[in-house]
């Protein structure tokens, strides 16, 4: 049973008189406890797919098709209702941790405000929970960390905090949009490990957006390859990487230094 099932998702954006089709008949599933990696060149619609699930498509966007979340239809869901799912059941982590936090609010405030809003818990309880979760995502000195501001952390630490913020309400789905692209390889490894851990421990359905096959090869269970808003290939990790079926996937992987593709 998949947690999220995307079927024939189409997205077009109209700005002025021009309409662009960003997603065309996109279909794939996310399953609990599994990481689904979406790969594709820049501009292929990876981020927009994630945002569509979150209900955060750009203004002027027209969405059609179906996103089934645990039996609930997300496409066309009223904004209010969607808002009740966001942050609680569906959560998201962004590419650049430095810009995903408000520079003038403390980290503690930012990772608990949705907890307080959704679960109506007191500030104190929320902070205690924050400290616990920060410990879980291995942010050093969680008690002090909640009082600090984003600029006092390194990129890797901020991404850990972002993950803490994402899981604090015990969501079912986590969308990670290129969570390691802005980080060094050494830091990336730690984040990937954390992602794997969270997925396994919390039984999350994870959508991992990236254009790095190295990352997919490390953590993804299923790989979806997109090109110009179209899904060109879906399959198990090993199969897609070692024996890509689609010519586009093959060319992508072959272009990477050190990739090993079976002929």
């Amino acid at each position: 049973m998949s947690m999220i099932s995307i079927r024939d998702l189409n997205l077009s954006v109209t700005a002025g008189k021009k309409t662009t089709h960003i997603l065309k008949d996109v279909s794939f599933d996310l399953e609990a406890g599994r990481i689904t990696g979406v790969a594709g060149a820049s501009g292929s619609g990876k981020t927009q797919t994630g945002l569509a699930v979150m209900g955060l498509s750009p203004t002027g966007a027209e969405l059609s098709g179906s996103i089934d979340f645990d039996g609930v239809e997300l496409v066309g869901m009223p904004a209010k209702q969607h808002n009740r799912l966001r942050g609680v059941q569906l959560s998201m982590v962004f590419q650049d941790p430095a810009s995903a936090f408000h520079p003038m609010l403390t980290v503690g405030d930012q990772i608990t405000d949705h907890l307080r809003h959704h679960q109506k818990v007191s500030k104190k309880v929320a902070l205690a929970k924050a400290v616990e979760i920060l410990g879980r995502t291995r942010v050093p000195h969680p008690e002090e960390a909640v009082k600090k501001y984003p600029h006092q952390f390194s990129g890797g630490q901020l991404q850990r905090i972002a993950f803490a913020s994402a899981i604090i309400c015990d969501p079912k789905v986590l969308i990670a949009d290129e969570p390691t692209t802005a980080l060094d390889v050494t830091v990336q490894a730690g984040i990937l490990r954390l992602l794997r851990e969270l997925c396994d421990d919390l039984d999350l359905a994870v959508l991992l957006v990236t254009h790095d096959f190295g990352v997919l090869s490390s953590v993804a269970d299923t790989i979806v390859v997109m090109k110009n808003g179209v899904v060109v290939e879906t399959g198990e990790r090993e199969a897609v990487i070692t024996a890509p079926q689609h010519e586009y996937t093959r060319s992508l992987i072959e272009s990477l230094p050190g990739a090993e593709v079976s002929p």
Partner: protein
Amino acid sequence: MTSIDQAPAAATAHSPASGAPLLELDSVACEYKLDGGGRFRAVNGVSLQLGRSEVLGLVGESGCGKSTLAKLICGLEKPADGSITFDGHPVRALGLKKRAKELLGIQMVFQNPYASLNPRRRIRDQLDDALALNPDGTWTVESLLEAVDLPADSAQRYSHSFSGGQRQRIAIARALAAGPKVLVGDEPIASLDAFLQARIARMMRDLAIDSGASMIFISHDLSVVRDIADRVAVMEAGRIVEVGSTEQIWNDPNHPYTQKLLAAIPKVDGKGFIPG
């Protein structure tokens, strides 16, 4: 793993031992004034040599001082300590002066393809500026564009009509047009997507070597560096911790930092193994 064999040039052929090095850095340091007062040593006692027709990869984590080093080499920052010699001439900080003729042999390709071309000038004009430096060179605007695999009509266009990868190739063409002896690439591929990175990097290497230049290729992506560099220098917190042939660094890293760095690179093998 067979990937080493893919490196197009054999490291030994270009060892710096053959004659005086083209570019020599002798315990160079560089300091920045910090906003809140105090100073920060971004590059600290770096000694490096670059031979002729050699590609030197410079790798290290973000903020370790790679760009600063590149700027020092081009004379864009003033060394706090040490000296840099290019082809027998000392490299001095540029300041507001016109660049000395002897130093024009060092050219740079920048990280950000969107900022490295003048948005208000035609590609042809920008290439012509560079060609003027090297009047007896063999390049023409057309041959340059062809070399970087762009249609000839690109010359009449402005940079905004090109994609990032195309822009980066124009930037490479411009650097080449000046007939450099040393081409410094400061993460020229970092802002391109992974599928383009290797391609552009390889193109840079080939063009540099074919035109008889050496190259310093800065990146934090080890796998790309491995693909094109003859030698690799590993930098950590302003210092060079290890230099060696690509093969040696890749297969037999000495310094723990290098080992850590290598270990963190995820492999595209579909095995589901998280590195590190």
